């Protein structure tokens, strides 16, 4: 309990530190907000054009697809807010041998390198995604109970952690291959798969996206909960998978550290 409080306190300190930094660049904040908003508008146009051609895609109507789009956006933004920059920094630190300063601090290093920097613009942006979801649910005439909202929140958090786990594993891979220029590119490329309903993919690819590269677990499970397109079993599966991935990051981090050679002399 005491340890937990200490780590919560540390998280608060790091986030406050980043908030102060962020306040120095207010214009950047506004620009980021509008660029991300435009990205959302473009996706909306895309969906609009697609549904101009057909009433349903793999059994999903337009507003259900927009719930999926919004959910995916919230998850991606929260992931980028908390972990994305940290993962990118981590690969550089491993490659250049700059990890030493983190290793000597008397706290869990994985915790420190994963949560050190917070991107506040992305947190604000995620609320736009939430507004999109609520609007689409209104169009569908679907209400959400308090319990449903809490479960949705937990699933979103779970998805953020799955994203984190995948990216963290890719970053830690740097210990073995020594460089990682394109690894982060994978995040953007794999992210594509989570934007659409799983049923559009053929059997083998779908199975892969539900298990090894769980891009469908990330988006389809929380969105499916909201629009009642999900059997209960998938919720348990989602949480179990999240826990499994997270446990794997701890293991591979320890393995990777054993290969760390610090800065070249």
């Amino acid at each position, binding site marked *: 309990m005491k340890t937990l409080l200490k780590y919560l306190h540390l998280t608060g300190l790091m986030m406050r530190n980043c908030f102060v930094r962020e306040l120095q660049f207010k214009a950047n904040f506004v620009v980021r907000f509008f*660029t991300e908003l435009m990205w959302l508008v473009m996706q909306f146009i895309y969906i609009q*054009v697609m549904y101009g051609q057909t*009433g349903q*895609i793999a059994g999903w109507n337009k507003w259900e697809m927009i719930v999926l789009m919004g959910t995916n956006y919230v998850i991606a933004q929260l992931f980028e807010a908390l972990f994305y920059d940290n993962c990118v920094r981590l690969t550089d630190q491993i490659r250049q041998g700059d990890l030493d300063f983190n290793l000597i601090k008397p706290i869990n290093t994985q915790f420190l390198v994963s949560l050190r920097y917070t991107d506040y613009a992305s947190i604000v942006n995620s609320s736009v995604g939430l507004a999109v979801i609520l609007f689409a649910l209104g169009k569908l005439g679907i209400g959400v109970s308090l319990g449903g909202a809490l479960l949705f929140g937990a699933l979103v958090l779970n998805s953020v952690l799955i994203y984190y786990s995948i990216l963290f594993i890719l970053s830690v891979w740097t210990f073995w291959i020594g460089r990682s220029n*394109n690894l982060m590119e994978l995040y953007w*490329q794999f992210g594509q798969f989570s934007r*659409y309903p799983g049923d*559009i*993919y053929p059997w083998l690819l779908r199975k892969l996206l539900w298990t090894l590269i769980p891009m469908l677990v990330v988006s389809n499970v929380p969105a499916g909960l909201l629009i009642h397109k999900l059997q209960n079993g998938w919720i348990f599966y989602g949480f179990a998978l999240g826990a499994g991935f997270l446990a794997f990051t701890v293991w591979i981090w320890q393995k990777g550290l054993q290969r760390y050679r610090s800065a070249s002399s």
Partner: protein
Amino acid sequence: MIAATKTSANSAFHKYWVILSTRTQEDMAYRANYVFGAIFRFLPLVTMIFLWWAVYNGRKESGASPLIGGMTYEDMVVYNTLMYVARGFSSVPGTMSDISKDIKDGLLNRYLIKPINYLWYQVMYRLAHKLVFWYIALLTFPPIFLLMRNYFSHWPTLWEWAVFVVSLFIAFSIGMLFCSMVGMLAFWFLEISGFLFVVMMLEFFMSGQLIPLNILPVYLHRFLFYAPFGYEGYWPCMILMGKVPQDQLVPVLLVGFLWVAVFYGLSRWMWNMGLKRYSAVGG
């Protein structure tokens, strides 16, 4: 006099040739990166293909026509595949940000004191990048096209091939000139990195990479047909697919050349105006 002009023309050619070959060699050293990129580049194509399949399937089930904007599902797959070829010419990644960075950080100085034209230097730099890109792509593209061979229903005529090749030249020119101009905005606005992202997104949309321009709402596509961005993706694809009527092939090219000329003039003008404002910050 004539001889002197000739020599200087030769040495100018030689100068840029050296830049091109050095840059190519440099890029070749990092070809593993290109191979990696070349493989994962095709992931979005996978989602595109299955999404369009679901759309066409939805239409079939509701009894609607199997054509969208005059294109069958097979055409749509071919369009998205050919887009990789078109973008292989028109995309010049890093140009906007490199130029704006050179201006912002005062790194331009080191080019200004050399007897070279900075913009031509950038062209050579990107051309080298494209050469290495296609060197790798010659290994990765053929299997993809072979895999998709059944989707191709139209074998282009010799004339269409010729127009296609010219359109690729326009694609590179417009992509290169446009990115240079956006990068040069840094002469006037020192911090444009956030803006660059917006521009790239608009380019992505208006070049027809996201959706073929002809299936966009009428008011949008009427405008986008005459805009320069279609030449970075939409037009080369449609030309090779035989979707551009024969009598429109030349007009399409002419509008393209017009845009190249306009962009060339504009970029020269921006460069001259910009240099007057350039203060070599951080020098």
